[in-house]
């Protein structure tokens, strides 16, 4: 029994990494007043790009970099559409979703006519001493580089958001763009950068799935985790620190379903319904967190000088 619980939680940590990467980026984006609904597909696209580049060059670093650039590129298209041209952010995000999904599947289809790209995934790093702790070690300290990176970045970007003047500017731009503009802050520049950053983080998440988790491409490999990340942003009340907790919650939720089905504990088809659990939790989160928290005041509202 402890085996199952350990593997559920360890699997949860692994599944939470994607969510965490994406939600850090989206927190910055929403703090600056922009929401990108296309993240799910940006993960898929950059996962393919990362996989393919790694497959061709044999270099994980180049693959990861390519995935980040691909994500940032799609983020740039979104920011051009919504921040510069002021098209409705939600509709633009959904169009970006189908654009990036189409691109990912198209590239995969075309690549598969030659070869099917497969890479061996990054090896796990056993942190000395800490990984020897009986249960905790297996859960926390026996993962690959991406996992540690995710938690590290969550803390770093949390600190940047709350402790630096850059973070202050980002938060201010999402709350009161008029005042920021009057104070000489370039509102739309910050929004562009945050939108591109959120694309880049989704790209990193894609690189993790492709290079650190699966090692191959599947068009549904993002597994709705890009959408769940947007719910985690609400759950974490727009804080990268709390996003760690939120992504763990949903990661473990997904992991329970995967492990119970995988272990064959309950063989009846009823078990299938357990897949819905993370989404039901997501609904509860949306309902519970509606009043206790306030979204950035200028979220989804474009800014221009009147």
């Amino acid at each position, binding site marked *: 029994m402890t085996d199952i619980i350990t593997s559920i939680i360890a699997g949860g940590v692994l599944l939470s990494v994607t969510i965490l990467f994406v939600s850090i980026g989206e927190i910055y984006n929403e703090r600056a007043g922009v929401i990108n609904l296309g993240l799910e597909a940006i993960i898929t696209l950059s996962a393919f790009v990362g996989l393919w580049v790694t497959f061709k060059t044999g270099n994980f670093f180049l693959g990861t970099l390519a995935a980040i650039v691909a994500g940032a590129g799609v983020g740039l*298209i979104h920011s051009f559409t919504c921040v510069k041209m002021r*098209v409705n952010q*939600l509709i633009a995000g*959904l169009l*970006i979703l189908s654009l990036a999904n189409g691109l990912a*599947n198209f590239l995969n289809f075309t690549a598969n006519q030659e070869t099917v790209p497969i890479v061996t995934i990054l090896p796990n790093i056993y942190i000395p001493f800490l990984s020897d702790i009986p249960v905790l070690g297996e859960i926390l300290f026996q993962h690959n580089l991406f996992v540690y990176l995710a938690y590290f970045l969550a803390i770093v970007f949390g600190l940047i958001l709350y402790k630096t003047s850059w973070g202050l500017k980002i938060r201010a731009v999402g709350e009161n763009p008029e005042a920021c503009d009057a104070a000489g802050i370039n509102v739309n520049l910050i929004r562009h950068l945050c939108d591109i950053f959120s694309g880049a983080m989704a790209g990193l998440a894609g690189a993790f799935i492709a290079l650190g988790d699966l090692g191959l491409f599947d068009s549904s490999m993002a597994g709705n985790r890009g959408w769940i990340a947007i719910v985690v942003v609400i759950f974490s009340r727009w804080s990268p620190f709390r996003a760690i907790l939120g992504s763990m919650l949903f990661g473990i939720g997904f992991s329970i379903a995967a492990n119970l089905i995988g272990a064959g504990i309950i063989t009846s088809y009823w078990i299938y*319904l357990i897949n819905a659990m993370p989404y039901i939790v997501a609904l509860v989160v*949306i309902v519970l967190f509606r009043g206790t928290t306030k979204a950035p005041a200028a979220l989804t509202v474009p800014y221009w000088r009147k």
Partner: protein
Amino acid sequence: MVKELEYKKIKTEKNFFFKYQNYLSYIIGLFLAIIVFSVTLLLLGYDPINALLSIPTGAFGRLDNISATLIRFIPLLLTALAFLIALKARFMNLGIEGQLYIGALLAYLVGARMEMVPSFIAIPLVIIVGFIGGVLWLAIPLIMKTKLGVNEIFSTVVMNFIAIIIISWLTVGPLKDPGSLLPRTPFLPESTWMPKIDPQYRLHVGIFLVVIIALILYIILNKTTIGYKIRAVGQNPRASEHGGVDVTRVVITAGLLSGGIAGLAGFMEVFGVHHYLFGGFSPGFGYIGIAVAALGMFHPIGVIFTAFFFAVLQIGGTYMQQSAGISIDIIFIMQAVLVLTVLIVQKWMTTRNSS
């Protein structure tokens, strides 16, 4: 000043078909979409001219293809209408995909028990049940929005995932056809199938129904009091509240229409095309419908044209994939580029004129 602006807005809506900017944006959008299409294919070593020409061939080449195109037109038009009617009342219904599945499911559950019922009773009944199914699935986010103030964007998306899991579970488990290896239900009784227009082709009478629904929505939106209220709430909820409009009620009305129409889209696919229920019968119609609606400028008549255009692209694209070995995904890329460009150009022109 405010009044003047609103007057201007209503006036431009009426002159939708006469504004040259709209046509210009479509021309630029199409141009860019074709450029993206051709350059991508050229880079990968395909012949773009042949690929482009295979789209109309695939969509209209033979009567079979025309029938397939018109069948694809049905769910695209319905999902676009479902999205735009809710949007008019400022309700972002991103849950059309889920409502479509649950509408189909509920209609299936009723339809499967209708072996003895004659068609002229069974078919109208399952249509209504399909509508109700979509309504029920939207009711949860709708109540959450109007009673608790929960943002509908996330709740509707999450409801999609739950709906898809329920359908997959049912078609793997309780509703599975024991005689089939695939995860799908048994066939519906033939008395509940949507009647075909010509027995040789798959096209069914739903095609007339959806166009009528579009016209009815146009009339509701533009010629009735409730339509006027929906548009008023959409343009300025607070002002309409002061003007004595029950905003909650208007949002609920528009929302229920939206969910019901989404449910009908699922009904049409299952009762008109497949005649049984299975997990992936919608290739994301709910999301494509949003692009169709945006391209049609959220106009109930405009989306008839854009839904047809998307259907042509998709059926033509399927043919292109089979004949030239080019992935149909290039069509989805093209569609997204087209709609994004049209939205950008239109926004650019309106802001340029007003400032």
